[in-house]
């Protein structure tokens, strides 16, 4: 859990790109895909994204491990859209109140592909971006306040720690006789109690960490950066690539006549 946030072992090309450039591209592609519900633009973007896997050091296996809830959600979303959307064209399946027609199936597939195409860039970004580098870029390049950015970064370390703490507190409470058995109400109370225990520990840890940071001179005033966040020619290529993917998706959909703005 705590190592999931580091990039160790990933030496793919895109790990060297500036996080802000990658961030901009993810934003652009997501925005374009959110504009239309059609299967052509989604498929085009999806294919392009799959082609980027090796550049980001992502494999299908890793994708499934990290993104399976998203993938299943996209599939379920598509399926339910196919069932409940208004029918048009030939009816393919009819079971009582549920029916799937050519039109609704097309809509459902479009919905599913679009869900995947929107989720994938974020997973790609996470795979090839170290949180520390992202923080550096946000503070140095995007000029966000460094207190906020570094504070958040340090707090993220504690989140992983708290996941372990949750398990320990759960065992410690079982050793006191607070069980996970019983009625739903009892279980709710047990969970609330455990949450309180975690909250206390989280506050203690956070205040100690804050003291550590303050004692190391963190606070107001000028600071320097040990790691300079820089742009390189690679970032230009990343931006060009992102614009290309977004443009291709739009042009392909417009060419095939499937582009339809969500608000129409």
């Amino acid at each position, binding site marked *: 859990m705590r190592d999931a946030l580091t990039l160790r072992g990933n030496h793919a090309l895109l790990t060297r790109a500036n996080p802000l450039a990658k961030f901009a591209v993810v934003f652009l592609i997501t925005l374009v895909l959110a504009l239309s519900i059609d299967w052509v633009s989604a498929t085009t973007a999806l294919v392009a994204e799959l082609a980027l896997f090796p550049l980001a050091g992502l494999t299908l296996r890793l994708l499934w491990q990290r993104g399976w809830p998203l993938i299943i959600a996209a599939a379920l979303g598509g399926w339910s859209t196919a069932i409940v959307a208004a029918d048009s064209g030939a009816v393919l399946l009819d079971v009582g109140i549920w029916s799937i027609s050519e039109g609704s199936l097309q809509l459902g597939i479009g919905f599913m592909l679009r869900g995947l195409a929107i989720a994938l860039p974020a997973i790609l970004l996470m795979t090839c971006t170290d949180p520390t580098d992202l923080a550096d870029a946000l503070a140095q390049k995007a000029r966000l306040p460094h207190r906020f950015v570094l504070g958040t970064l340090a707090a993220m370390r504690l989140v992983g720690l708290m996941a372990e703490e949750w398990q320990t507190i759960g*065992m410690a409470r079982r050793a006191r*006789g607070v069980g996970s058995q019983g009625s739903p109400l009892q279980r709710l109370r047990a969970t609330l109690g455990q949450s309180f225990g975690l909250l206390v520990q989280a506050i203690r840890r956070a205040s100690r960490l804050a003291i550590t940071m303050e004692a190391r001179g963190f606070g107001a005033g000028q600071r320097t950066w*040990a*790691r300079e966040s820089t742009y390189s020619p690679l970032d230009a290529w990343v931006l060009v690539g992102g614009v290309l993917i977004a443009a291709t998706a739009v042009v392909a959909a417009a060419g095939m006549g499937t582009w339809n703005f969500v608000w129409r």
Partner: protein
Amino acid sequence: MTASDAGASGVRPAAVSARGWGWRHAGRSAPAVHGLDLDIAPGERVLLLGPSGAGKSTLLHALAGVLGDEGDDADETGSLLIDGVVPRGQRGRSGLMQQDPETQVVLSRLGDDVAFGAENLAVPRDEIWRRVHEALDDVGLRSAGGGADGRAGLDADGGPDAAGLPLDHPTSALSGGQKQRLALAGILAMRPGLILLDEPTANLDPDGVLEVRDAVGRCLDKTGATLVVVEHRVSVWKDLVDRIVVLQPGSSAGSAGSSAVTSAVLLDGPPDQVLAEARDMLIGAGVWVPGYVPATRRRTSAGSGDLLLAAEDLAVSRERPRRRGFRTIPPVPVQSGVTAQVRSGHALAVTGPNGAGKSTFALTIAGLLAPVAGKVSAAVELSEGAGIDPFKWKANQLISRIGTVFQEPEHQFVTGRVLDELMFGPRHLGHGEERVDELLERLRLTHLVDANPYTLSGGEKRRLSVATVLAAHPRVLVLDEPTFGQDANTWAELASFLTELLDAGTSVVSVTHDQEFSAVLGGAELRLGPASRGGARQEAGAA
């Protein structure tokens, strides 16, 4: 050592001066420190002793400049100065290390964490990386080559290098002792003239303690910085410091209305002199004085030796089986092939190096973790019809059979009042409430019945956590590092109390590095090997 010139290391040792200094925390009526007069010369190394409540940590925090503002209802009296200036305005002049290793790490990569303090002091980039490498060398976490541009980590070919740890080594993968040394490196990179250590080794095993102590010694020899360390275990620091200062609680010193203000400093002088003069007083205050092992009760009965619990070829891990998509993958055990018996009236000490899975093993036989392989089985005498596998027992069935005391007492608090805390088990079981008074008495908690458990001192919390588990009257007691960070008085009480339980037929399993503690309890030792090599079979020797 002279104050004026900075050494070759670029460190100018700091002078500390307190005049009638006192501090009252917001929301408290009594001051934490009162009437402190103290001068520490540049380069001096001071060990700060005193009973809990003497304000040692408050003083360190004040020197580190991290005490809350006076504005929010806190009160400051007198003056406390570093080089004649208030600490708050001098960022980086002092560096503070606290007790909990997890909160001494700020960033997730080794090199970045060391650089953090220097960055905040606006040190130029090239200089930062020079300092990072030097500081890591000094604390014995030698950085493995790498460029000085901070991107070194991404270009290094990963994997632990024989020469040391790479700059992008994840800080979460360090041991407690390594984390504290990393914190020291982060402090050194700021080039502070004053190093403040607040019980830096209380949470560490004996190897970690020496690791940190030696690293501190090397760095002081090199930089000549002034040191103030707070620690119970005098023997660890005695040879490293050249002065011991004993503080006494502020409330007793001067808050009594019009009475003359006495100094917060009780004793002050060279280590040997203070230890000789105040030996009895320090022992009384629970300080671990060198060469003194607190007197404890001796065992009077060998115990019946009936088998209560057995571990067979056990493999353990804290991780649960993981879901990868639709597949379930069992975790990699931290320790495997462990065979041991827990017997009535016998103690079992689980020992071994860091990371050997001692606690994990203890939690598994205590029915709190599922075994990865092998099995834990309860004898009929213990299970009394609840089934053979403790992990499958209901919480109520578990607590009246196996009691587990965790390393961190706060993890086990479930109510907001000491008495409720003790009554909790008996109330759930429907019997045993009459035992509570005896436990309160026996563990000196009677005067605290209405207090909130979270507000107790370290020793009180430890005693309470033992008492709460015992209130359910378990036949087997499992303790995880019960003596970590405890003062000598709590240590002796705890050890004596456990011998009574053993004599009465309870079985005590303790995960511990504390050999003196194991010696008092007697019994067998289960020594776990360094890493999981699979199939290594360990037998607990006969008592």
